[in-house]
């Protein structure tokens, strides 16, 4: 009997050992994957039952806060600025999840980062919240001006500081009211979300960094960068023929200049006048695909920008131009798709860019060729105001060498001084720009009106780079971009330079 008792004891031990092993699996080894399962709303419920940190602009405007409610969920997320910051803050809904800063900085806002937790530990037993306040790089005055200047038109405004990648303003239309989507009343929130999802305007989509458009002539900055980097194009040579249109090899379809005007000359001249013929010739016969692809890549195309927001998309530039058919007189390979290459040189065909990307191109030019990582978080503060985290700025991609950047910068300054972007001239400031009018091939003609620019006090490094896009405006002349998008860019630059 003793032996049997011992055997029974061993069996019971084994059973409990199995329980212990299983507990370890569930509570330790699989814990993270269980916590992260989409149908596991535990972390969310906890977040809704305690105060959440505010989101404020760098000039102190509160754009998201939590209000106590006497309800099952004890806090309701509220956005005092309604739709103005929707595409940056995103929303924070119990049933619909979250987006934007609410999502990317959820740990900070809910006080779950190690540094915030440490602070909470020192104040144990206090009602004091560990929730952190996220301070944005965005400035309320610039953002407000952007909305005002856009005046309800469909489009986007992005303003960044070229020196560190801080996003100063980012607004796009149409937008939505995050208050409605974040409503703790699940049914009401769902109704709003369904309406927004069904809208053909796609208001939930941030056109500034989640959608792509033909960049049109603004892409000529990248084409010029490819030419300058290859060494085949300089400020003085070559001088492109003054023609009304250019027909690339292997096709009979010409690429026309705006209004069929004769256009040509050296780099600054063709840049100021935005000569389609010259840039198309440069790309197809002088450079070939490789330098073009390399320049686009260096500018950030085909890479998702590392911005601290949800679901940013990469701008795209084609990489495959078909087999080599022959060689141009300059010794450049002519590919089967060289006609397409010629069109991409002027920002048409398969090129597509987010407004954010085009702002970063201007920023790269203004910052000596270096594109800094774009970001919307400036710092995180604890409840007592102490800074617990700061965004560490750094280079995202090197667009061009400082030497090439200097040439491009002067080309853009020249465009404002005497080219298509004269509307951006500001006293006491160095402003460089490139206009764009991306024809959409519709009848009557419509186009995306673009303006990308940088600006800074005279003689000082540029402190703001902007991209303005106004979609599907009537008309398609070389003046469209400057005329339509120019005033918006001007207003935003003035606000960013503190001159409104």
């Amino acid at each position, binding site marked *: *009997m*003793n*032996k049997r*008792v011992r055997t029974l004891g061993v069996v019971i031990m084994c059973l*409990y050992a199995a329980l212990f092993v299983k*507990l370890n699996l569930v*509570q330790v080894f699989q814990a993270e994957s269980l916590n992260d399962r989409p149908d596991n709303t*535990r972390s969310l419920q906890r977040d809704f039952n305690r105060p959440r940190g505010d989101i404020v602009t760098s000039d102190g405007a509160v754009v998201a806060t939590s209000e106590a409610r006497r309800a099952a969920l004890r806090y309701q997320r509220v956005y005092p600025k309604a739709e103005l910051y929707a595409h940056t803050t995103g929303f924070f809904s119990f049933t619909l999840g979250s987006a934007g800063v609410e999502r990317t900085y959820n740990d900070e806002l809910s006080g779950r980062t190690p540094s915030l937790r440490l602070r909470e530990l020192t104040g144990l037993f206090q*009602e004091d919240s560990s929730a952190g306040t996220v301070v944005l790089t965005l400035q309320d005055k610039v953002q407000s001006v952007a909305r005002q200047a856009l005046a309800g038109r469909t489009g986007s405004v992005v303003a960044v500081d070229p020196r560190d990648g801080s996003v100063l303003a980012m607004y796009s239309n149409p937008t939505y009211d995050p208050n409605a989507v974040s409503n703790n009343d699940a049914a009401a929130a769902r109704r709003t979300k369904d309406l927004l999802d069904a809208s053909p305007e796609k208001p939930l989509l941030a056109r500034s960094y989640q959608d792509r458009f033909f960049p049109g002539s603004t892409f000529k900055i990248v084409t010029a960068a490819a030419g300058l980097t290859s060494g085949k194009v300089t400020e003085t040579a070559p001088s492109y023929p003054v023609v009304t249109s250019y027909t690339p090899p292997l096709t009979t379809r010409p690429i026309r200049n705006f209004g069929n005007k004769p256009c040509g000359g050296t780099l600054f001249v063709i840049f100021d006048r935005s000569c389609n013929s010259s840039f198309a010739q440069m790309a197809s016969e002088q450079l070939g695909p490789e330098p073009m692809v390399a320049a686009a890549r260096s500018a950030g195309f085909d890479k998702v920008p590392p911005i601290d927001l949800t679901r940013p998309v990469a701008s795209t530039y084609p990489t495959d131009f078909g087999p080599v058919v022959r060689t141009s007189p300059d010794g450049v390979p002519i590919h089967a798709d060289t006609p397409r290459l010629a069109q991409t040189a002027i920002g048409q065909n398969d090129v597509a860019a987010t407004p954010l990307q085009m702002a970063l191109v201007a920023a790269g030019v203004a910052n000596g060729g270096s594109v800094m990582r774009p970001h919307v978080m400036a710092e995180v503060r604890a409840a007592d105001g102490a800074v617990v985290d700061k965004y560490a700025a750094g280079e995202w991609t090197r667009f061009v060498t400082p030497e090439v950047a200097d040439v491009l910068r002067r080309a853009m300054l020249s465009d404002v001084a005497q080219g298509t972007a004269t509307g951006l001239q500001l006293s006491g400031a160095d402003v460089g720009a490139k206009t764009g009018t991306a024809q959409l091939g519709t009848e009557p003609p419509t186009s995306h009106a673009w303006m990308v620019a940088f600006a800074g006090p005279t003689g000082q490094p540029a402190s703001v780079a902007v991209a303005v896009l106004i979609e599907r405006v009537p008309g398609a002349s070389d003046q469209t971009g400057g005329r339509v998008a120019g005033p918006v860019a001007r207003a935003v630059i003035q606000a960013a330079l503190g001159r409104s």
Partner: protein
Amino acid sequence: MRTATPELVTPAEFVRRRRRTTELGLLVLAGLIIGGAYALASLGRNSSLPADVGLFLMGIFGLVVAAHLAVRRFAPAADALFLPLAALLNGLGYVFISRLDTDLAAKQLGWTLVGIGLFVLTLAVVRDIRVLQRYRYTFGLIGFVLLVLPLVPGIGRNINGSRIWVAIGPVSFQPGEFAKIALAIFFAGYLMDRRELLGTATFRVGPFNVPHPRYFGPVLLAWGLSLVVMIFQKDLGSALLFFVLFVVMLWAATGRASYLVAGGVLFGAGAFASWGAFSHVQTRVSVWLDPWADPSGKGYQIIQSAYALAWGGTTGTGIGLGISGRIPYQETDFIFAIIGEELGLLGATVVLCTFLLLAGSGLRVARVAGETFEGLLAIGLTTLLAVQAFIIVAGVTRLLPLTGVTLPFVSYGGSSLVANYVLLALLVRISATVDQRPPRPVSG
């Protein structure tokens, strides 16, 4: 101090007094742990110490000291571990129930009083454990009647899909909780009578020497009984428990492994047949295999349990700081998941270890008792306790398909708590009885 004059006490008396002192010390320790947990639970929920923490501590100490004095009076030679371990589990369970539902906690407090009352009463009435052996058939009958009582029309109640409740007037209880103790007594008595016969292999079936089919009757009876429970009461956990109890006791009494094999085969066949025949059994199995096939329906409970355990991690969220209200039956069958969430792997392991220690103490008593009625009964009662805890924890952690039984002493539930205190009193009584005998040479 009486112990200051050792020449006046016998060595046995000295051991007894030391045991009782140990028990008191451990009880105070358990009381302090429970009081601390109670205060932490309140801090976690309201960020303030409970107003009644002093009262609570006094209440705990009052209860455990009463039980302790009863042991001192009626079973002075008893093992020192049983009562403190049960008190720890009971108290911990109470803290979690009060953290989840204050109304239920008030009732549970009442049941604890009744439980400890019956514990004392059992110790007082059952002075000689062998008296029970004399009434083995009576207990067998009582056990059988209690077991099938819920099936009687008029008093049986279907609650949550199981027909395991009986309501007579205002009182409703689960007779199955008491039936298992009565049946353990019956089995122990019956098997002591028949172990010679049952242990003799006279009949060959294939490679096995088995006892004559005539003596197999009781096995088949127990099997049939557990099938009845499984089929008509839809109580898979209790069916499993009864069957394990009987097979283990049969094997312990006779030493014939063929009973274990036969029992396993029979249970497997019964389980397989009921899996094929009953949709609720199929549901349990499919939910066990893949709860995420129906995450908001049939799999909801077990998924939420896994989420609770995972949320707790190694150290837990802290008592009162977990997210409750997600798991159906969190105060009864699933209380272990809440403990795992708020006390983490460490706390859950402590609970498991407490049950292991209880089982160890029970088996130690059985070993000392040897081949006697009380030894067999100790094995049966220990098996009941250890296996019941295993079945529910395995279900909650998805080690095995979920079969709803309570976690002894911890879960909310009057019948379960009171019955387990009676069970504990019997173990305490046996431990006190065997100790009074002259020590025997220990051999395999």
